[in-house]
């Protein structure tokens, strides 16, 4: 699945992020290849979500460089200097990066279908008819064709999260970020969301998934990164890291969650 010759989809080079004096990310360096599924695991407060949010510029990195598909995020480089991007340019970069949130964040005043159609129409300026056909197809893909005209309040958590995935896919992103997509769900609804994500991975989508679902990480991910205290403690193939962790911190964490 991993193509070694192509440029990596995501390259983080010594990325740090501080909120005031609190250093949340400390010099994170990693690469995600095109088509790779990477799971980020670790205790809460380890900086997983912050790192994810840096990738689509919802947070601005304090130092280091972060690029997606060879393009530097948030800055333009010219004459050996970095220039802060205009909001418009940052928005253009975000179009190609889909994001799924822990709390779904569907637009409650729009139906499932309208949620999925909103960005392609407003951001890409596509015609309504084509967008609607595509949106219905996407809802069918996440198993919600029958629920297109429901408002989010009338959908279960699992259904809402699947709509949120369809909404992100509608922009035809080259990278999908999942920020604990199943953490707000009832246990019995987790499976339906993970199934959708697994299908997505099978179709070759590049994905970075912050999760506590070790079963999913083992089964679907190509690589697993364990973070703690803002640093990458250990990374490698999921089965290696999960079954044979090298660091004491990883061992301690996995012994609690597995």
């Amino acid at each position, binding site marked *: 699945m991993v193509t070694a010759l192509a440029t990596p989809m995501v390259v983080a080079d010594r990325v740090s992020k501080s909120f005031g004096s609190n250093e949340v990310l400390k010099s994170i360096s990693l690469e995600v290849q095109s088509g790779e599924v990477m799971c980020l695991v670790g205790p809460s407060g380890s900086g997983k979500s912050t790192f994810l949010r840096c990738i689509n510029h919802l947070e601005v990195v304090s130092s280091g460089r972060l690029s997606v598909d060879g393009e530097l995020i948030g800055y333009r480089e010219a004459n050996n200097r970095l220039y802060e991007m205009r909001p418009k340019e940052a928005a253009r970069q975000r179009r190609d990066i889909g994001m799924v949130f822990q709390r779904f*964040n569907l637009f*409650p005043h729009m139906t499932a279908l309208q949620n999925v159609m909103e960005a392609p129409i407003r951001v890409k300026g596509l015609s309504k008819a084509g967008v609607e056909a595509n949106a219905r197809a996407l809802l069918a893909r996440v198993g*919600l064709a029958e629920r297109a005209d429901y408002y989010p309040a009338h959908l279960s958590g699992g259904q809402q999260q699947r709509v949120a995935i369809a909404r992100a896919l509608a922009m035809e992103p080259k990278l999908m970020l999942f920020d604990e997509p199943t953490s707000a769900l009832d246990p019995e609804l987790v499976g339906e969301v993970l199934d959708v994500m697994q299908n997505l991975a099978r179709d070759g989508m590049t994905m970075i998934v912050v999760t506590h679902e070790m079963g999913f990480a083992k089964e679907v991910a190509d690589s697993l990164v364990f973070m703690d205290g803002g640093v990458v403690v250990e990374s490698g193939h999921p089965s290696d890291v999960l079954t044979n962790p090298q660091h004491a911190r990883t061992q301690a964490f996995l012994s609690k969650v597995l």
Partner: protein
Amino acid sequence: MADTAANGRPTEPGIKAIRLRHPWRNIFAVVLLLIVALFIADAAVRPAFDWPAVGKYIFDQRISQAAFVTLQLTVYSMIIAIILGVTLAIMRLSPNPVVSSIAWVYLWVFRGTPVYVQLVFWGLIGTIYQSIDIGLPFTEPWVSFPTRVALSAFILAIVGLALNEAAYMAEIVRAGLLSVDSGQEEAATALGMSWFQTMVRVIVPQSMRVIIPPAGNEVISMLKTTSLVTAIPFTLELYTRSRDISAVTFETVPLLIVASMWYLFFTSILMVGQYFLEKRFARGIGDRRPNKKADGATASMTGVTPVVGGNQPTVVLPPTDPPTDPPTDPPTDPPNDPPNDPPTDPPNDPPNDPPNDPPNDPPKGDR
């Protein structure tokens, strides 16, 4: 009252029990009715109220014209106040410190001084600035005309009311914008929507639910505040006109009653309008039922129509869970198996509409 118990909760139709009695409540109601009846009987014959005079003036052309002027003042100044208020609210939330400071100073001045004083100032504007010049500073103006000609008392009244009201509207709108969950802005931003698109398409529509009730209050308040424009002086609105007539005819009380009736009439209309606006913006949030189209589709698909107890009184359960939560007992469908999606309603869905709850808009064709 067959289907609702005394505490406002629905009763169970399947249970036969002696209803809890409330003797004191009934006695209090009867006493209250007696007092009101006595007051009405007395007022009907009390000479000071002079009902024949009320009847004579209620549809007097001078009064109805003045009532129309009051309505115009309210509508025009509210429209300007809402536009300016939304602008000020967005300015105050702007990351640009220059812009947010301008909005802050505006609010400080216009909320910090009485509207009556402001209106007197607007009345004096023709004395303070005798002409309006358009051109570059320190050169001969290109156009110049006297202020008194350019700005009639009517326009000054609207400007005075609107600029004052905008400061209050700005705070109402700001509270509404802040009430929207920050995740909404993040989701829109992550989709690549611009700040402006996020505001117009995502934040503002959701904030309307919070904005409309206090904004409705402001409209009703504005209707009555128009009576202060006599400070400008502008004398053609309802209250001042009634006072002017009664000053000549000495029918003070009847004309006050006439004016009050017109104010009440307009207020009632505004309240009805507010009700429908609130329903419109509660879409997807206030209602606990799928929209009609989707509902019909599920019912016909499965043949499951919720019917509770035939001729029995309808059970109407109040929506208990907060609107942002996902349904507590969602229909569990097998993962990735779309055709078998069981369309069973969550159990706390009211099976029948409460009588005053018109069906919701269909999802499409609403913009």
